[in-house]
C-alpha cells in the first residue's frame, strides 16, 4: 500500500519515537542492566556461582520438571485440541473457553489452590500419602504445578493447525485405500508435528520461568525441591545481587535460545509445507 507514490499517513515520527522511548525505558535499559551486572562479575565468581551444588541442583530440577510437565501437556493437550476441533459434544465450547484459565488465574491463587488439593491434608494429597506418594512438597508437586500453567500453550498452538487440516488429505488417503490408523500415522501426525513441537517448546519455556504456582507446592527444600527462580530470590535476600544476576542470566539465555528454536521450527515447517 505504501508503494504507491503518495505522502505517508501522518504520525509516524511521534508514534515510532514514543514506541522506542517507552520500550527502551521499560524493557531494554533495565534488561541490559542484568547483562552488564553479570559481565562486570569476575569470570571465576560467575562460574563458581552457577556451578555450585545448590545452583546445579536447582537447574536440574527446574529443567527436569519443566520437561516432564511439557511432555504431559503435549500428550493431553493434543487430545483436548483434537476433541475441541474434531468432535461435537455437549460442553465443547465450555471446554474450549476454560483452557485459558491458567492465563487468567493469578499464579499465587493457583499455588494455594493446588496445595489445597495436593498438599498433605489436601483432597487428593492425603489419600495418596498412605501409598507413599507425596503429591506436594516434592518434585511431583512441582510437575503438577507446571502442568497446570502449561496446558493452554499446547492446546492453543495445535487448534489452528488442526482446523487447517480440514479432512481433505485424510479423505484422499482413505480413498487411496489407507486405513484410519495408517492415515493417522502417515498424514495427520506429520502435518501436526511442527505445531506439536512449537506447543511443547512454549510450554517448556513458560515452565522454566514459573515462580508463583510452584513455590506453594514445592516446599522449597534446598538441593531437593528448590527451583531456580526461588534461588534468585534467596540470593537477593542474602544481598548477593551479583549471584542473583548470574543465575538469572543463565535462565534467561536458556529461555531465549529455546524460543529461538520455536522460530526455527516455524520457519522449517513453512519451508517444508510451502505455506505462507
Amino acid at each position, binding site marked *: *500500500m*505504501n508503494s504507491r507514490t503518495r505522502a505517508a*499517513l*501522518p*504520525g*509516524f515520527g*511521534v*508514534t*515510532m519515537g*514514543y*514506541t522506542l522511548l*517507552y*520500550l527502551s525505558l*521499560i*524493557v531494554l535499559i*533495565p534488561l541490559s*542492566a*542484568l547483562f552488564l*551486572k553479570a559481565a562486570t562479575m569476575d569470570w571465576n565468581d560467575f562460574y563458581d556461582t552457577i556451578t555450585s551444588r545448590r545452583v546445579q541442583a536447582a537447574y536440574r530440577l527446574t529443567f527436569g520438571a519443566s520437561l516432564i510437565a511439557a511432555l504431559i501437556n503435549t500428550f493431553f493437550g493434543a487430545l*483436548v485440541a*483434537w*476433541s475441541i476441533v*474434531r468432535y461435537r459434544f455437549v460442553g465443547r465450547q465450555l471446554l474450549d*473457553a*476454560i483452557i*485459558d*484459565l491458567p*492465563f*487468567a*488465574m*493469578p*499464579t*499465587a*491463587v*493457583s499455588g*494455594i*489452590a493446588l496445595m489445597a*488439593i495436593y498438599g498433605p491434608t489436601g*483432597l487428593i494429597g492425603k489419600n495418596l500419602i498412605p501409598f507413599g506418594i507425596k503429591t506436594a512438597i516434592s518434585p511431583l508437586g512441582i510437575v503438577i504445578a507446571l*502442568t*497446570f500453567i502449561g*496446558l493452554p500453550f499446547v492446546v492453543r498452538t495445535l487448534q489452528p493447525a488442526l*482446523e487447517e487440516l480440514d479432512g481433505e488429505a*485424510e479423505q484422499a488417503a*482413505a*480413498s487411496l485405500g*489407507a486405513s484410519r490408523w495408517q492415515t493417522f500415522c502417515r498424514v495427520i501426525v506429520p502435518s501436526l508435528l511442527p505445531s506439536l513441537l512449537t506447543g511443547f517448546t512454549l510450554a517448556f519455556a513458560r515452565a522454566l*520461568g*514459573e*515462580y*508463583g504456582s510452584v513455590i506453594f507446592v514445592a516446599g522449597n527444600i534446598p538441593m531437593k525441591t528448590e527451583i531456580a527462580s526461588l534461588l*534468585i530470590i534467596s540470593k*537477593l535476600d542474602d544481598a548477593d*545481587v551479583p549471584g*542473583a*544476576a548470574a543465575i*538469572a542470566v543463565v*535462565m*534467561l539465555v536458556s529461555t531465549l535460545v529455546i*524460543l529461538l528454536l520455536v522460530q526455527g521450527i516455524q520457519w522449517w515447517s513453512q519451508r517444508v509445507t510451502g505455506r505462507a
Partner: protein
Amino acid sequence: MSLNAKRLKRETTDPWWVRAIIISLSIAFVALMLVLPLGVVFFEAFRKGVSVYLAAFQDRNAIRAITMTCLAAGIAVPLNLVFGIAASWAIAKFNFRGKGLLIALIDLPFAISPVISGLVYILVFGMQGWLGKWLEGYGIQVIFAVPGIVLATIFVTFPFVARELIPLMQEQGSEEEWAAISLGANGFQTFWRVTLPNIKWGVLYGVLLCNARAMGEFGAVSVVSSNIRGGTNTLPLHIDALYNDYNSVAAFAMASILASLGVITLIGKTLLERKLEQESNSSLESPTTEGTS
C-alpha cells in the same frame, strides 16, 4: 457411488469408541487440572461459613492490598494501552527496516521469568544498582516501595495490548485512513473517527488480558516489594502472607476475588473473540464456514 462415499466417511471419521475415549480423557484431564483448582478456591474460602468469609475483608491490610492492586493496574494498564496503540500505528501503517526485530523486542517481556522481571529493576533502582544511591539523595525510593511495584507490573504486562493490535491493524490495512486523509481529516481525527472504531474490540481484548495479569502478578512484584504487611503488599502478596500465617480462610477469601476476576476475564475473552471473528468474517468476502459433523 454411495457405497464409496459411505466407505470414505467411515475411513475419515473415528469410530465411536475412539471418540468416547478421547473426549472422556480430555474432559477428565481438564476437570482435574483446571476446574478442580478453581472450585477449591471458593470451597476453601467459604469453608467456615459466609460470616468468616466476609470478616476477612474487614481487615485494614486487606483493604490496603486491594487498593494497592487497583493502583498498580490503574497505572500500568493505561500506560501500556497508550504504548500499544502508538506501537501498532507505527508498525501496521508504515514500512521500515527492522520491523520484525521491533515486534520481537516488544514481545520480549513474555519470555522473561517474573522473578527476573523484578530483578532487573533492582539492578537499576536498588541500593547496589545504577540509580539507587542517586535517587536516595532526593528522597526517592523505588525498590521496596510503590514505584517499584508499578514498574514491575508495567514490565510484565508490557506486550498485551500491542501484540493484540499489531496483527489486527495489519490485517485491516490503511485504505480507510487514506480516504479520511484525502477528505481533509487530520491525523488525530483519522485515528479517532476511523481507526479506533475498527479496532475497539481488539483494544478491549488487550486491556482485559493486560488487566488480569496486572492484578494477578506475583513473582515480579514480590521481588521488588518489601513484604511489609499493609506497606506495599498487593493482593497476591497479601494472599501469600496470609497463607504463610496459616490463615487459610482469609487467604482463600482474597484469592476468591482474583479467581472471580479470572472467570470474568475468561467470559469476556470468549465473547470478544466471537465479536472479533464476526468482524473479520464480515470484512472478508467469503467467510470460511466450519463443518458441523
